[in-house]
């Protein structure tokens, strides 16, 4: 299994789709037999995982946008993405 770090460039796996669910005013992550409902922050992180941006870059952008401590954000982002990776949602 893959262990993510700040140098990783994660992306959603090909069978996984992030979509705006207009009927329920929320974001959803769609995979076969699964519907995940990320909160706004998680959805924002997932939108930035394009296979090009490193986790470090994603964290930098969030730290700047929310004027929050970088270490704290890095911990949360890696934990959330690692969880998605472990469940097979990332490539």
């Amino acid at each position, binding site marked *: 299994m893959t262990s993510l770090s700040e140098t990783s460039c994660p992306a959603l796996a090909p069978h996984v789709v992030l979509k705006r669910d207009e009927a329920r005013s929320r974001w959803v992550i769609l995979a076969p037999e699964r519907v995940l409902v990320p909160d706004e922050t998680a959805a924002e992180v997932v939108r930035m995982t394009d296979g090009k941006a490193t986790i470090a870059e994603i964290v930098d952008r969030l730290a700047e946008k929310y004027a929050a401590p970088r270490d704290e954000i890095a911990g949360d982002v890696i934990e959330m993405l690692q969880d998605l990776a*472990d469940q097979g949602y990332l490539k």
Partner: protein
Amino acid sequence: MNHVQAAIEIPLAAMGEMTHRCPLQCPYCSNPVELAKASDELATFEWKRVLDELASLGVLQFHFSGGEPLVRKDIVDLVAHAAKAGLYTNLITSAVLLDDAKMTALAEAGLNHVQISIQGAEAETADRIAGFPGHEKKLAAARLVRAAGIPLTVNAVMHRQNLGQLSDIVALSLDMGAARLEVAHVQYYGWALKNRAALIPTPEQLDEATGIVDEARIRLKGRLVIDYVIPDYYAETPKKCMGGWAQSFLILSPSGKVLPCHAAESLTGLSFDSVRDGSIEEIWRDSPALNLYRGTGWMAEPCRSCEFREIDLGGCRCQAFALAGDASATDPACGRSPLHRGIFSLAVAEASEDRRTLVYRRYAGQS
């Protein structure tokens, strides 16, 4: 007025049984024993209307199932239509009719995912169970799916006659390039109920299978997701069948009936409405059959006062009907059902007799 009527949610996913026609004859097929005739199937334009209605209602995923969905000549057209409507599309197939040209066309149509069923780890067992020489074709089809860049789930329906192959099935799924494996013990409705004595595992086999799944899940974390469904007869608590009767999942029969699950037509006395008679939105909201077991208002004891009634919603109505003769009874899979000990003993007894003869699912014209 029923004040305990559950709020009606928009289903997250819908499954279309595009046809009941299928080259395979699996003795545990989830299709009803009374199969729909080809002449009753919804036409292309009717399925397109259905897909548009589902997408605008807020349904997110559409599973093309059957029978064998690739029997339909319009399947690529329908997948393209669903994808354009914004639905996440999944093809649930035996794959024996999947060739290179069809796979390419489906990928171009925007298909998101393919699920291929296997009946065993090698051809001799698998083809005997399926009643069709399809195992090698499935392996070739899996290569086409992966070459087209489409992710693959392998669905392995497990029972006494193939459970010894479970470790090999896990390995085969990896070889086939699957990212996900469903290890689904047979659920005993319809065709499978006819074949229960030939299929139900022993409790020891079930424990061994559960051990294999637990070990493989740890070893293959991040490489292969394994979903696991145990047979109800050996459960202590009932499953929240379909996430609740007419709650989050909707099934369309080949002739367009709006059903809460595959087996619901086995409940005699219930009449399900067809998309030919009205909009899906109206049927989902107003159908007396769909409203009958929504939520908890229909429950009798021991469900009514049970602290788990919202957790499992009383289990499965079809199983209650099949085993207790009353669809509003507690699912006998539940330890609190008066029938629970009886079905457990029945399963153990049938498994130890070890009868092997299968009653194959036969579509008109198959022999």
